[in-house]
């Protein structure tokens, strides 16, 4: 059986900026309170158009779980590693807090966690996925901006979305090949 390739596909046109995903992530993963401590975020993109014809998009984002992984490459102790499914994780016991991964990440997706005494980031909620559940941000979203699934399964929602809609990835010029896809 072909191994799974997990990914998240986002339809940001649906996003209400309710930030339920960010709250769910904090509670699910015991992310400490603080301005710099967050695994996911919702950016309010600049207003478009002219009054009264105004429009604003929101861009939820998080660790891109890059296939070409800048943070994993510079980690001196293999604390950052990739699972066979392509999920980028941190072994907190191996992290020496050199912060090379933070400087290497083009998405600013990592931060120092005083709770773990290590650098932490989005894990695609692997503890939930292994129980057959979806990541907290995916499950909690009232309008299903995010879909989570296996790219190697042609019938998964992520595969169907990517085969039926054009999409983009963040910072393609970095050649990181993210596992987050934004359908247009």
């Amino acid at each position, binding site marked *: 059986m072909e191994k799974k390739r997990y990914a998240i596909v986002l339809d940001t046109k649906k996003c209400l900026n309710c*930030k339920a995903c960010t709250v769910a992530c904090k509670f699910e993963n015991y992310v400490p309170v603080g*301005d710099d401590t967050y695994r996911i975020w919702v950016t309010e993109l600049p207003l478009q158009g002219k009054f009264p014809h105004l429009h604003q998009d929101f861009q939820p984002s998080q660790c891109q779980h890059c296939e070409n992984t800048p943070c994993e490459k510079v980690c001196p*102790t293999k604390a950052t590693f990739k699972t066979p499914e392509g999920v980028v994780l941190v072994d907190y016991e191996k992290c020496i807090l050199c912060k090379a991964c933070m400087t290497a990440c*083009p998405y*600013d997706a990592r931060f*120092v966690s005083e709770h773990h005494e290590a650098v932490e980031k989005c894990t695609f909620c692997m503890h939930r996925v292994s129980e057959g559940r979806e990541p907290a941000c995916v499950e909690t979203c009232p309008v299903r901006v995010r879909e989570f699934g296996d790219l190697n399964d042609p019938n998964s929602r992520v595969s169907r979305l990517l085969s039926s809609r054009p999409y983009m990835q963040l910072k393609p010029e970095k050649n990181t090949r993210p596992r987050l896809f934004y359908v247009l």
Partner: protein
Amino acid sequence: MSTRIDNLRSLIRVNRDVPAIPFIAAGFVLLVLGLIGVARVIFEGHEAVYGVTRQVPWGLLIATYAYFVITSTGLAFIGGLGHAFGFHQFAGLSKRIVLLAFIVLLAGFTQIGMELGHPFRLMYLLILSPHFSAPIVWMGIFYGIELAILGLELLVIFNPAGTNHKLAAILGFLALVVGVLATSNLGFVFGSLTARPFFHGIYFPTFLVVSGIAGGAALLLLVYNIVYKFNVPEQFKEAMNSLGKLMGLCISIMIFLSFWKVLSSLYTEPQEAYDAVITLLRGPLYANFWIGEVLMALVLPLALLIVSKAREIKTMGLAGLTFLIGMFFTRYDFIVAGQLPPMRAGNEGSGVETINGLMHYTPSSGEWMIFFLGLGLFLFLYFLSERFLILDADAH
């Protein structure tokens, strides 16, 4: 037994002529301040004491680490020239070169030790779980070997039974090679960061090696002027002349490299590299760049060296002092400028706060205290050695 004691006595004496006491005292005060900083980090935690942030994770401590370790490998380079490559004028400086290189490297290690959240974890994980494709692993390996080589060199040079010059030559050569590898790899530690194009390319590995050699020469010129109260004896004049020429050559290469680095980062405005260079030219680091880097590290010392014609040792000592101050700004700017362009725009909700589109960083009092720890350790240990050891080597 008595021969052994006599041999040891041949290494030690109280050098009352060397003005070491003020430096030892200053070093001690700085060390105490540094140790208070260490206590703060232990009891309050890195995050509470340091000013680095999620977006600018490397700050003053990494800059000071780079400043010290690169200067140390520059000294080892000059020592290697003397020991192994027939530059006999440097042979008479060998004791001070090796001792300085060793102590300056130790001072650098205080900075990285206090920067890392888990320094002891690093020591065993480098053996148990090394990731050989990560440049930081090689940084640890090369600088660790460099410290061991310099330690061995110290033992050989300060052997009471006499120096084994052949072994010293081999160790000097190894220190030169490993030092160049360590410093150029340090450039790659930054060059390997996908997110930071400012650090990419051959510029930094080359610049760090060349500026390290200039730093080593500058420190030697300054130290000899201090030790001999700006009246360096005739026997060292040839060595000082050569150090002045070497420093002048290295500064000239640095000007050449810097000019093209800045120009290539401006031309066609390659996004993040352009933003980083703008922080230097007219952004938040402009004073550091124009006064610290350009004036104090490049223009002024080169002008002083030209005026002195590499003969007036006092003037060269002054050039060494201005260069060493300027070089600190250069290291700081190098580390910080590359991190100021944000990875995400500072829009509402992004969690990123920018000023004029750039991240911001100011070292905290705790970081300055750790800086004092390194500087204090250097001043205290080195001038203690000057006070009590015989450091004028026999030429060989």
